[in-house]
Structures are given as C-alpha cells and as structure tokens.
C-alpha cells in the first residue's frame, strides 16, 4: 500500500544564484534523479540545498536514505545513508538551518542530520510512525504527528511535543485517527493536524492544538476526504488542505478544502485533478501549487501494481480560490512540493519516477495599459501606440519583450528594466485595433506569462 505523504517547505532569508536558463514560467526546467520513492523535501534558507527523504516503499536494500541536492545547478550532491533511517518520510530544517530532522515513518525515531557536514548526528526516539514535523518560531519546540508505525500504519492517534534542546518528547497530545500532516500558524500559537481517519469521503478531520498549553482546543473541523497535506497562509487566516482520498485508492479525492481559521470551518472547496497531495504557497501569498498524485492500482491491486497516470501540478489563485492555467506536467506520482524563499522555483518529488521536478515560477506580476497618442510634428502627425506597465513581486525582470502575436514570434521591441517601462509603436493607423503581448524575463531566465494590451 502506498503511504500517505506530507509536504513541508521552509521559508528562508537569502536567495541563491541559480543556473541560467531561459524558460517560460510554470514549466519544468530540470529533473533531478534522486532515490527510491522520494517523499518529503525541505529547502535551506539560502535556497542552495534541498534535502529529499527517499521513502523506499519498495524495500530496496540501502534504499532508505536522504538525497542532498545542489540547487544552483540542480544536481545530486550526495546521498546520506544511515542505519537509523526507516522509510524516511519528511525532512524539516531547524530554524537556524544547522539541522535537518527526518521522520522515519516505518519506525519510532526521528534522525538528526548536521547540515554542515551532511552526516547523521543522532536520533530522537519514542514516536509511532512519525510522518510530519513542524517547529515553533522560537526554534525550541517541535510537534510531530504519529501516523502509526509498521504493522500499525494508520492507527496512530497522537501528536508528540519535542524539546529540540534536549531532543526528548515532553508531551503527547491525543488527536484524531491517523494524523497525516501538520501545520503551525505563523505566530506559533496553534498547530493544526489533519487526520486521515479512514480515508472516506467527508470522513477526515482536523484538530487544533494550542501550543501554550499543548492541549486540543476549539472544534474538531470535519468534512475532509483523506486529508494528505495542510498549509497555512502567511497571515494566518486560511489553511489549505489537500483531499487525497483513500489510501486504498477508492474513493479517490479530487479537491482542496479551504479552512477559514477565524471560524475553523471549511469555506471553499476547489476542484483539482486526481488525488491532490502536496501543497505549498508562494512567498507573496498569491498562489498555491498543489500536486495531483494521479496513481491508482492496476487490476491486480498489489503494492507493486501501481498504475501511475500523468502527474500534474495545479496552480490555485488564492484571491479567488480557483485553479488557473497552466496545468504543469511533472513526473509520476508527485507527492510533495516545496517553494524556494525567493519564489522563483517549486520543487516536486515524484514518488514513482524517483525524481524531483524543478518548476520555474513567475515571481513577479506585470500590470500594463496602452493608449494611442497623436504625436504632432510641424506638418505631420505620427500616430503612436504607447504601452506602459508596472511590475511587482520578487526577482523582477531585467528585460521585457513586446510581441505582436499570441504565438510570441513577431517581436515588436525590447525594453530594458533599467529604463522607463514604456514602449512606443510608431507609425500606426488610427481606426485599427492593435494587440501587444508583454513578456518579462528575470535574471534567472524565467519568462512571464504574456500580458495582453489592446489598443484601438
């Protein structure tokens, strides 16, 4: 049986210098081979390194390990092997970035990695199939969901509270059946767990843990369908939960639930593709990227007869809670997603493919308008279509290309970002409608979706 996955991402401080390439936003720009059935991944704060937990669902000898990726050139740096690994499932970086905590979903421990040396320096014991971890803003306390270890997978009912200074469990909190994932509010006051329960449609729940008392408070939020992952917006107002559906692959889930954290109720349901799994929010808070696992059993129904369809990533416009194009094709069985702190890239772990897909994101938004100007000289008038635009976001474009056609083949001109953001198309004819397509390209080579301006 394919285990459920959780996805986590770590917001850092400094951008990395990425390899130069040129690709439209929301396309896969690299695919990195990692280990066996990669699951959770975490990015360092400087966006230079990614840690990927290879879940080794097929029981390959020495397949339980952690891949370390160089995100500057999207390559595998090293693979960390250790006897403590037991189907590693998620990776969570400490607040200071010096340690990586790997949950061993098949066992009872969490492995601690020194990120400076990429070596295992210890373990934390006492869990029951740990499958996710969040850390309080002060970096001293972690909350770990216990899904249930080998032989009892899906039977866990607790969240462990861990003192990261002593690496010991200090409290155990009872939550719903099979807590699948965790998220912590930005102020660190509450931890939300989503509970798979039995994977039935509408049968999943969520509990709210007050971190000051380490007790469950408030209502149990109901209405999820095999919840897989949870992420909370940076302003702490909403949570997004992916409804994977049953681990037995029937019924399947196809939605993301939006929870209003002021009322702790589901206020919106967004339709995605088959088996939404991992989810992450862009640093500007405007978009959520959700993976669609899309992998069902073949007719024989054994563990190794997984018939993965096309794994995809949907983009959710969080202002309207709707899915917007494009649908991004990635590897097979994409289970987890992490977004870089600068918002330039999303990293998808593809469970069946054994790869990590790197998606270039558009971290900036262009707003443009146009007008027609009668540019009068002494004895003639040059009619000019003038485009002006503004840009917001991060990793802003260094240049802009203006095209005359939707296919982006007929270049009208280019504008450098060092000058005024304006373009003049001379010698146009009044009474004729002109359409322009503005595309920005940032230093990383990511090109934006064209902004369309019509004049006339």
């Amino acid at each position: 049986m394919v285990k459920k996955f959780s996805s986590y991402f770590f917001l850092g401080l400094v951008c990395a210098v990425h390899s130069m390439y040129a690709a439209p936003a929301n396309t896969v720009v690299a695919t990195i081979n990692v280990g066996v059935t990669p699951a959770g991944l975490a990015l360092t704060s400087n966006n230079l390194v990614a840690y990927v937990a290879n879940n080794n669902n097929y029981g390959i000898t020495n397949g339980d390990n952690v891949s370390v990726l160089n995100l500057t050139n999207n390559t595998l740096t090293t693979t960390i092997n250790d006897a403590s690994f037991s189907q590693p499932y998620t990776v969570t970086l400490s607040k200071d970035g010096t340690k990586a905590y790997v949950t061993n979903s098949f066992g009872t421990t969490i492995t601690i990695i020194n990120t400076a040396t990429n070596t295992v320096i210890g373990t934390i014991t006492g869990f029951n199939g740990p499958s996710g971890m969040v850390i309080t803003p002060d970096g001293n306390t972690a909350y770990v969901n216990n899904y249930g270890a080998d032989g009892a997978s899906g039977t866990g009912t607790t969240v462990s509270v861990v003192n990261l200074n002593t690496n010991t469990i200090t409290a155990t909190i009872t939550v719903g059946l099979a807590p699948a994932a965790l998220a912590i509010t930005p102020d660190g006051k509450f931890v939300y767990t989503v509970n798979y329960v039995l994977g039935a449609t509408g049968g999943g729940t969520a509990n709210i843990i007050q971190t000051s008392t380490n007790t469950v408070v408030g209502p149990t939020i109901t209405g999820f369908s095999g919840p897989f992952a949870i992420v909370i917006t940076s302003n702490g107002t909403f949570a997004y939960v992916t409804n994977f559906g049953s681990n037995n692959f029937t019924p399947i889930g196809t939605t993301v639930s939006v929870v209003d954290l002021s009322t702790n109720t589901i206020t919106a349901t967004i339709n995605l593709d088959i088996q939404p799994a991992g989810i992450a929010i862009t640093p500007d808070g405007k978009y959520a990227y959700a993976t669609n696992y899309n992998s069902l059993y073949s007719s024989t129904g054994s563990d190794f007869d997984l018939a993965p369809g096309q794994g995809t990533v949907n983009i959710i416009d969080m202002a309207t809670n709707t899915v917007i194009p494009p649908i991004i094709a990635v590897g097979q069985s994409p289970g987890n997603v992490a977004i870089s702190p600068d918002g330039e890239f999303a990293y998808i772990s593809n469970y069946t493919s054994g790869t990590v897909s790197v998606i270039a994101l558009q971290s900036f938004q262009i707003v443009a308008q146009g007008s027609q100007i009668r540019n009068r000289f002494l004895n003639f008038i040059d009619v000019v279509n003038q485009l002006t635009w503004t840009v917001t976001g991060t990793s802003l474009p260094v240049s802009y290309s203006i095209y005359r056609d939707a296919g982006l083949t007929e270049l009208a001109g280019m504008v450098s970002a060092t000058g005024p953001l304006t373009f003049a198309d001379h010698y146009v004819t009044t009474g004729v409608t002109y359409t322009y397509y503005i595309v920005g390209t940032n230093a990383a080579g990511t090109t934006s979706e064209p902004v369309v301006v019509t004049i006339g």
Partner: protein
Amino acid sequence: MIRLFRLLCVLFICVCTQLVCRDVLLEFKGAYNFFTNHHVRKIYGTGGGLYGPEVTFQILEDDNWYGFASADFLKEKGHSSGMCEPTTLYMVPLALGAKYFVPFNRCDFYVGLGFQPLHVKTVNCIANTIQRTSKWGFGGIAKTGAYFDLPRDFFIDVFADYSFVKVGGSPCCGTTVPVKSVMNSVAIGAGLGYRFD
C-alpha cells in the same frame, strides 16, 4: 538650407545693385520672430531669432514709394507634442513687396505689404531615427517701421512685421498623417543699413 539662404542673399544684393533708381537701402536685420499659431508654439516655443538682409529701393518718381525684397533665416529646436521627440525647424521666409514712407523730422516711418514665399524644413527624431521634411508655403507679409538716419549714409531700421503663411502637410514617413501648419508670426527687430544714393 543654409546654402539656399546664402545664395538668395547674394542674388538679392546683386539684383539690387543693378537697379536703376535713385535710392537703394541695403540693411542687415535681426529680429525675434514670435510664432502666433498654438500648434507651432507648442512644438517650438514662443519663437526664435530671425536674421537676414533686406534691400529697399525706390521704384517710382514719387519719393514715398519703395519696393523691398528680403531673405531671412530662422533655426529653432523643439519637441513634438505628444511624445516630446526632438525636432528642428529651419525656416527661410522670402519677401517681395512695396513700402510707403512718411517722412518725419528725425525719421521716416513706413508701412508695407508684400508677397511671402516660405520654405520650411524640419529634421525630426522618431523612434531614434531621423526623418526630414521639406515644404514650400505661400502667403503675405505686412510691415511697419521707421528709419533713423545716421551719419555717413548709415541708418537704423526699427520694425515690426506680421507674416501670414500656410504650409501644406508632409507625409514624412511610414503611415504618418500630413497636416497643414499655420506659420503666422510677428517679427520685432532692428536693422543696420547703408543708403546708396
């Protein structure tokens, strides 16, 4: 443009010296030329310096009637209205007409009217490329002023002229739209001349 102006100056002087008349006044004058049309002012500002020679010659037995011919030159920079792109105007107004003098104690006041062909050339910067236009226009000129005699047959001419000329549109380049331009202007200035008796 400047060569045309210089040629016309020489031509006027040569013609004038051949005139069989009692009185020929040759002067070189300078003036500030105020554009009166708002489109022209918007592009080139209020006006610019206008300079050139003028010959005034007695044409009738009557001492009061004189003919005149002149050629002037103006260069003014400006910016198109709309996109503020650079443009330079070169203007050569010619004139041929008649003046009527009314002598006073210390000066001779005059009024005049004439025919004015005007050559206009513009050099325009559009989208970082240079585009030129060249056009003739035709109109008239009304003159008023006074001559003040100086020793040794020199004189000073203080004047105010009003030109009224329209120049047709020029397509220039691409899909530009030709438009007529009204080159009316008021020139106020003075000249220093010599009287050939």
